[in-house]
């Protein structure tokens, strides 16, 4: 019986075997869960970022242009499906943190403003990892990259909250360490009409400098230290989905060598920021956060 198990799974899975991702990459893990939630009537657009390596061998229609193209060709695809009267498809547009937060930020913002009927996913490994670990707008404060050898000087951009202010129907953050929450959010997003935005953390052993076996543990600590709060903003109302007892930020930072040079003052600065953000999130939990 067990010998058929793999074949049966493989038959049902929307991904073919094999991946070009680094060991321990969150990409294959994320996409397996995401595609399970999305189902077979899905079309995927996106290219470039590491996490897309995971779906180069996807069993679904996949269109791609290049790294700096986000939410744009998918807008054209959505228009073509409308023009042709094709219904019942889920259109997913995916991009990394650098594409979403830096070079194509205007494109994502415009697609949100137009309320394009697509699920935009940001796979966030917190730097330009495919080009060899360069700082992006979503690299956290203090993190080493090859372009921030002394650690990043500025804070990480809050993209999900910025997108939420476009008054889109659904925004959520997810983590592969919380699969039930992740699948539930993607399923929910799938059934909503208009622009949905899901921001997922993407553990990166290569760029964050940790043992590939620890990927899930590391991002779980991200949630437990409130570095990576899991929330959703539906119809403008914030809901914190997980409210763990807060662990000190050191617990998270010390798991990754990209933070090992940080001074006590810098760590305190990060902790203060997280505390303030946590407080505001708790204050606004269940409240409307869009003016």
């Amino acid at each position, binding site marked *: 019986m067990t010998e058929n198990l793999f074949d049966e799974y493989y038959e049902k899975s929307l991904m073919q075997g094999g991946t070009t991702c680094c060991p321990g990459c969150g990409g294959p893990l994320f996409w397996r869960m995401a595609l399970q939630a999305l189902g077979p*009537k899905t079309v995927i657009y996106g290219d470039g970022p590491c996490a897309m390596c995971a779906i180069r061998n996807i069993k679904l*229609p996949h269109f791609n*242009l290049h790294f700096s193209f986000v939410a*744009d060709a998918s807008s054209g695809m959505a228009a073509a499906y409308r*023009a*042709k009267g094709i219904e019942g498809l889920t259109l997913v547009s995916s991009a990394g943190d650098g594409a979403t937060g830096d070079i194509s930020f*205007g494109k994502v913002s*415009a697609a949100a403003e137009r309320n394009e009927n697509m699920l935009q996913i940001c796979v966030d490994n917190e730097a330009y990892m495919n080009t060899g670990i360069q700082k992006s707008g979503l690299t956290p404060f203090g993190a080493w990259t090859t372009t921030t050898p002394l650690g990043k000087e500025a804070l990480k951009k809050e993209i999900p909250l910025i997108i939420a202010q476009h008054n889109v129907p659904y925004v959520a953050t997810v983590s592969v360490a919380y699969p039930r929450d992740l699948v539930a959010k993607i399923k929910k997003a799938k059934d909503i009409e208009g622009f949905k935005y899901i921001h997922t953390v993407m553990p990166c052993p290569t760029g964050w400098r940790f043992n590939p076996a620890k990927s899930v543990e590391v991002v779980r600590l991200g949630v437990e230290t409130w570095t990576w709060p899991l929330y959703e903003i539906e119809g403008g109302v914030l809901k914190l989905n997980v409210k763990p007892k807060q662990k000190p930020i050191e617990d998270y930072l010390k798991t990754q060598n990209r933070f090992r040079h940080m001074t006590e003052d810098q760590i305190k600065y990060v902790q203060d920021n997280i505390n303030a953000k946590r407080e505001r999130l708790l204050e606004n939990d269940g409240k409307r956060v869009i003016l």
Partner: protein
Amino acid sequence: MSFTRMMDGNEAAAYGAMLSRAEVVPAYPITPQTELISRIATLISEGKMKAEYIKVEGEHTAMAAACGASAAGARVFTATASQGMAHMEEALWMPPGMRLPIVMCMVNRAMAPLGGLRPDHNDSLMQRDNGWIQLYCENSQEVLDTVIMAYKIAEDKDIYLPVAPCYDGYFVSATAMPTTIPDQAEVDEFLPPYKHEMYSLLPWDYRRPARSTNAAKSRYEVQQAHDRAKDVIEEVDKEYGTRFGRSYDGLLEEYACDDVDAVLMTMGSMTGTVRDKIDEMQAEDNRIGLIKLRGFRPFPSEELRELAKKYQAIAVVDRNNSYGSAGGGVVSMEVARALYTLDDKPLLLNFHVGLSGSDVTMRQVGYMAEKTLEAVSKGKVDEVVDWVELHDLGEVL
């Protein structure tokens, strides 16, 4: 029923897109293309045109959305100009390599900072290497007809390349001329609905062209499509002529070239002025004619080589310039390469005109014609590249 009325180039292009039944129009405004896309928005809002208009936030997205829509099965139209075309450039490389038959009007306008809003051809000519077919139009009628023909060329399964009807800002885009709008049913008969044989982005019928692991091979395929396009452009033009009574001699047109010693070679709106001046000069027994270059990509080298044997001199009139080039403007360098293999080469002159922001005048055309005939009589060219506007030629006419 076809009908004729005054129409400028932008409106003609909009009617061309409507009659071609373009289904998706992702566009971003830029002078002098704006009236084209706002006309399309109006036609859609009036219910006359059935298309999805995507009001994108920039040209880069306009072309990306065009790619997505084209691959997903919709006929796509868009337009841009100048700075917008440059902003779009990264995306402009996609449709030829991906074999997406998008049609986009390039409404010619100079690039900043030494440009302003005036028309020249540097914006579209700098896109010469990325695989787009470029057809230059002289007036609004040609714009309308070329947009419709462009889809027939682009969607030919032996071609599958994007096509750009190019026309000068203001002189064509904003100049109203009597324009005949063909009957929708006749256009439908000429141009069947869009269906891409290589693409379907539907989960139950997923197809994409397989990309060769050898990029050189894929590029060579695009080159071969360009070679085939030379014939297809001729054929489509002829068929259009049979059906609608107007055709444009394919890639290049000889005007009043019987028994002449030399020709001026032009592109775009200035051609009309040159036609008049040539008529005037031939009435005074000057042996000079005109070649209008319509297809810049693919470049009609073979055809030009055939014609060149008849002339002692060819003067390329470039409404563009290429700083530090091997000599003169972009078109003249193409012509030089095309003629290089001839044993008996005509003299080659090159004039820069229309760069100052003003129209190409009758007097300037006369000056260029005289200089060309002078080279014929001397048997040599004194000044290979001549910046015509730097001379004080007196009155416009």
